[in-house]
């Protein structure tokens, strides 16, 4: 049964230094507030996993929380580059960042294998690209039935996966809808999971197309209204595109970023 906790308590209990942590959300329902709480609690040496590390990962990387990033597309969607990510890769600031780079199909299948309790997944991908030469977790495999050359990628089983959803009930059953990306797979693949939600309701009304994560696969639920901002939560609020554009200015400059970080963490300049 999922425990209902405050965000602060949930992050303190579930996210430890050195953990492999996945915060998923495909443009929609990104658990931004949870990511910023990890920054506030000064976690270090994290291996961050995410298909599309966007501005919350730029913030975590810039704050020095991450030792390694496992990903498939790192950008500020609709705006441009992630400058803290670039600075860490190109200039090792504030700490060096090791990367493990995949395609979306590879990452999605790694979560599927993790959620399925299998050691690896198979896809017909990566052929001819330079990615396998740089990424140790992309290997050729021969189909035992047809002899076809395919690609194997190992399961992703994060220590903790964090996602944001629209609703949960008091027992900790979670309901989400709209673009749900790989959130279900990320939660099912993880040893522990935290779901932040827009609201906790007495009873979940069935919704066509909604994903329901039963309370017994979720470790903790925290009610965090607006917890996906500046991304969006269908049915609750829209994406704040201006905030994504504004991040380009802040993220571009170490000093501007440090000011932003001090404000977030309550450090006086």
């Amino acid at each position, binding site marked *: 049964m999922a425990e209902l906790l405050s965000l602060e308590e949930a992050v303190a209990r579930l996210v430890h230094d050195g953990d492999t942590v996945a915060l998923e959300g*495909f*443009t*929609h329902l990104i658990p931004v507030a949870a990511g910023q709480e990890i920054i506030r609690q000064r976690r270090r040496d994290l291996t961050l996993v995410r*298909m*599309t590390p966007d501005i919350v990962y730029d913030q975590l990387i810039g704050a020095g929380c991450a030792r390694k990033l496992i*990903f*498939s*597309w*790192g*950008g500020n*969607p*609709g705006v441009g*580059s*992630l400058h803290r*990510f*670039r600075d860490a*890769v*190109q200039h090792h600031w504030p700490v060096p960042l090791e990367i493990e*780079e*995949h*395609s*979306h*199909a590879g990452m*999605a*299948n790694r*979560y*599927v294998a993790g959620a399925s309790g299998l050691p690896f997944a198979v*896809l*017909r*991908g*990566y*052929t*001819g*690209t*330079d*990615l396998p030469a*740089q990424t140790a977790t992309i290997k050729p495999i021969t189909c035992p039935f047809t002899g*076809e*050359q395919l690609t194997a990628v190992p399961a992703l089983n994060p220590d903790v996966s964090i996602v944001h959803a629209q609703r949960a009930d008091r027992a900790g059953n979670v309901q989400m809808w*709209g*673009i*749900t*990306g*790989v959130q*279900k*797979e990320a939660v099912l693949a993880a040893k522990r999971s935290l779901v932040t939600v827009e609201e906790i309701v007495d009873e979940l009304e069935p919704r066509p*197309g909604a994903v329901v994560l039963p309370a017994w696969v979720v470790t903790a639920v925290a009610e965090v209204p607006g917890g996906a901002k500046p991304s*969006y939560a*269908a049915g609750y609020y*829209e*994406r704040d*595109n201006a905030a994504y554009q504004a991040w380009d200015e802040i993220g571009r400059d170490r000093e501007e970023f440090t000011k932003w970080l001090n404000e977030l963490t309550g450090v006086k300049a």
Partner: protein
Amino acid sequence: MSAEYTADEMMSVAAARALGDGMSCFVGIGLPSKAANLARRAHAPNLTLIYESGCLGAKPSRLPLSIGDGELADTADAVISVPEVFNYWLQPGRIDVGFLGAAQLDKFGNINTTVIGSDYHDPKVRLPGAGGAPEIAASCGEVFIVLRQNPRAFVEKVDFVTSFGHGTGKGDRERLGLRGRGPTLVVTDLGLLRPDPETAELTLTELHPGVDLESAIAATGWSLKVSDSLSTTPAPTDRELTVLRDLEKASA
């Protein structure tokens, strides 16, 4: 046709024209998405747009700002999970056209969106990376690419092959067992390039109105081959321009 238009408008219109009614198209964000949405409004109402966020048959009323824009989900025939998009729809070859952009493109249509510079671990510029593109380039029936033409983008050989085009020439795709036909068309702000049937090297086949051949050659970082039957792209029609501008206005 006397209407005034920009080079970017010509590029979007030429890219949109490549998409026929009834096709299915896996759409990249940015220029490809603009062209695909223009096509759906201008001449291909039954074009099925598929976005990697899981939106099948999206019919946005404005241009999406990102691949997971709520407008795409709200107007889609179905919203599915990301593993399903890649495993059930893209990988088996169910999609006619993949429409991609690029940071760097080489003369065999290979795409780089990973790093600029020869050292992966110490790049000159770290780019966003692969996203869905490698499998789109491998698995769609064919691939169209749209990007502005300049010598920094159009290089002899890409620094990193993120998405495979024609490798080092004709026959490479078949040897590697790739199923789709790969890049069959590149649309730029100057003209159109298509792979040579014998060598698969990208060859200039059309110039946009008012663009001279020398500028196209100067904007290409390799010794550009020009088709014997080089022709001129028809200028955008009033209707195409009106639809494009309305779309951009709705998206501003």
